[in-house]
């Protein structure tokens, strides 16, 4: 066993967030109601510090805390994505929460605790640490979903998410206990070793339940029902959070679980992943067409995008993991940009969320309309925007793994999805102008602009992301 200092050095981002969250609770409790802006700034600072630590920290792989926690290139890559999602969420939320009069210091603390759960989840190397990370992440998410507690829709969203989340936790635990019972180990390498001789029926049974629990967190079909309601009901910055950071962590742990714990029964889990992937792509593409609320539309869009990302996972090779990693990075940036634009949708101090409210945006706020249009092109996967390359890498891996039909279905469904993205562009540029939006705060516009710039410039200089993703994929092969 390693000394504790070695373990903590490898879990430094987590340690920073855990200690930081405790200190921020103290700051909030001592300084009272007025401390909300200070705590939010400190939380952004601590999350950024954790991100910096990941960038400049050791690049070695180590399994610490008695096999419960692994620090490798893949974990660091995904953690960086998670932290970016959380930081941008906090930046977007400051002005919004103040205007909605729910500016409490607990919000940044809960986002930090949730982020801590996501980091732990990303690094989980055993079923127990997986479950604890998942619960830490989810519990804080349930609370921030209904953070606007006097709002009926927000309360409904929180309650719905909580009840269904508890159900999914139950399924996950049931699966985990079956796997432990049949494989005789809770650690991922231990499970893989027990399955050397092929699949045991009990383990496959448990695997199904485990993947069901994880699919709920990724909000993929058939465990997606909560997504539209929760996305619509939760305050917009919280929705941005839901659509970004937790998805990164959930996909990361799904990937790690199947790659590290079940590499010997690829055939078994690949069927499940392929089904989830196709079903999510189809539902995300067709169900979003009839939506009038942009947050609901983004909910279906996120379901669809998780389906596209899982195409790479179904490939189950290094190119597939790389594809998923690239896909998630691009999805994260695009989604955060789009949600920044949605946060900016305010008419006379009141936030609006209908697609029709965007009508004629090109005449009332040309830049915002341009940003939104570029991000929509990226989500639709139109070259040369980054979204095209995201799909390209994911589908390429599937074709290499001999899953050409899956890739063909993906391409066809992405053209269906393009319809509703392009409709938003049409509404913004060609419809009669709706009342102009209030001028958004600088930070929100900046997030939108930076996201657009990144999405726009990916094809010019893709090397940093692609290289990082290749290194991340090397952690498994």
């Amino acid at each position: 066993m390693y000394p504790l200092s070695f373990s903590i050095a490898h879990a430094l981002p987590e340690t920073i967030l855990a200690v930081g969250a405790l200190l921020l609770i103290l700051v909030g409790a001592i300084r009272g109601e007025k401390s909300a802006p200070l705590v939010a700034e400190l939380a952004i600072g601590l999350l950024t510090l954790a991100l910096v630590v990941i960038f400049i920290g050791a690049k070695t792989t180590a399994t610490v805390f008695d096999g419960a926690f692994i620090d490798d290139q893949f974990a660091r890559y995904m953690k960086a994505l998670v932290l970016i999602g959380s930081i941008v969420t906090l930046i977007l939320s400051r002005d919004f929460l103040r205007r909605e009069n729910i500016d409490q210091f607990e919000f940044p603390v809960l986002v930090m605790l949730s982020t801590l759960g996501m980091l732990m989840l990303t690094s989980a190397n055993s079923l127990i640490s997986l479950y604890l990370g998942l619960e830490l992440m989810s519990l804080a998410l349930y609370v921030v979903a209904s953070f606007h507690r006097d709002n009926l829709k927000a309360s409904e969203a929180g309650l719905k998410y909580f009840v269904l989340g508890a159900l999914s936790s139950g399924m996950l635990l049931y699966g985990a206990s079956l796997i432990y019972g049949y494989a005789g180990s809770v650690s991922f390498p231990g499970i893989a070793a027990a399955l050397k001789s092929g699949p045991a029926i009990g383990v496959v049974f448990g695997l199904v339940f485990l993947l069901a629990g994880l699919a709920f967190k990724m909000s993929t079909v058939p465990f997606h029902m909560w997504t539209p309601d929760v996305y619509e009901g939760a305050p917009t910055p919280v929705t941005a959070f839901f659509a970004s950071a937790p998805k990164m962590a959930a996909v990361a742990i799904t990937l790690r679980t199947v790659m590290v714990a079940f590499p010997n029964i690829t055939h078994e889990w690949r069927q499940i992943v392929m089904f989830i992937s196709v079903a999510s792509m189809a539902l995300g593409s067709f169900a979003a067409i009839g939506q009038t609320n942009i947050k609901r539309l983004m909910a279906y869009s996120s379901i669809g995008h998780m389906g596209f990302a899982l195409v790479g996972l179904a490939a189950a090779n290094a190119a597939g993991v790389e594809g998923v990693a690239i896909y998630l990075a691009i999805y994260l940036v695009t989604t955060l940009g789009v949600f920044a634009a949605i946060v900016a949708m305010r008419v006379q101090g009141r936030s609006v969320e209908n697609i029709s409210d965007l009508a004629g945006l090109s005449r009332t706020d040309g830049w915002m309309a341009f940003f939104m249009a570029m991000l929509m092109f990226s989500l639709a996967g139109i070259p040369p925007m980054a979204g095209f390359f995201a799909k390209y890498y994911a589908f390429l891996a599937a074709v290499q793994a001999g899953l050409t039909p899956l890739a063909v279905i993906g391409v066809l469904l992405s053209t269906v999805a393009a319809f509703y993205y392009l409709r938003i562009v049409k509404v913004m540029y060609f419809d009669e102008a709706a009342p102009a939006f209030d001028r958004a705060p600088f930070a929100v516009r900046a997030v939108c602009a930076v996201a657009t710039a990144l999405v726009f410039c990916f094809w010019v200089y893709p090397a940093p992301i692609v290289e990082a993703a290749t290194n991340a994929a090397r952690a498994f092969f």
Partner: protein
Amino acid sequence: MTAAVAFFYLFSMIMLASAFMVIAARNPVHSVLFLILAFVNAAGLFMLAGAEFLGMILIVVYVGAVAVLFLFVVMMLDVDFAEMKRGFLQVLPIGAIIGGIVAIELILVVGSWTVAPAGSAPVGSPITPGVTNTVALGRVLYTQYIYLFQAAGLVLLTAMVGAIVLTLRHKVVKRQVIAEQNARTQASVVEIKKVPFRAGV
């Protein structure tokens, strides 16, 4: 040995009887009290099995906290348990038959049970002689499982923060200031007005 066996039967019988009384008692407060009795006897069974830590935790957590919480809920909420349980003992035979069928099914399943070859490797931790449960748990809880232990702590912290955020309302409360009360004089608070006859105030 015989003493242990005798105590086993004693605890088991009281536990079964009180468990039955939990569902049969008319008064819900009596039900909770029988529940506590069942917990205490279960703790006794744990002690007999050599799991003294579990036994003590059962008393501390379930008797000390959970059952008292139940008692609060039962006494504070006006739930008509008698109405809810009406006719319960009449349908008991049907319930017993269904329970019996499920039990037979379980016995059949367990009877034809074979352990998968992959799972046959011994997974339990051996008991070190001369080390009590509490010591053995303490040795691994803060060393081997420190990460998981702290993670569980953070989960509980999050739950607590969440419960406070969602329910606490900062009300404006009028506080008693005794000095101010004592400093009041008749002159400072009573005002005498002359009211003209038949003119109102």
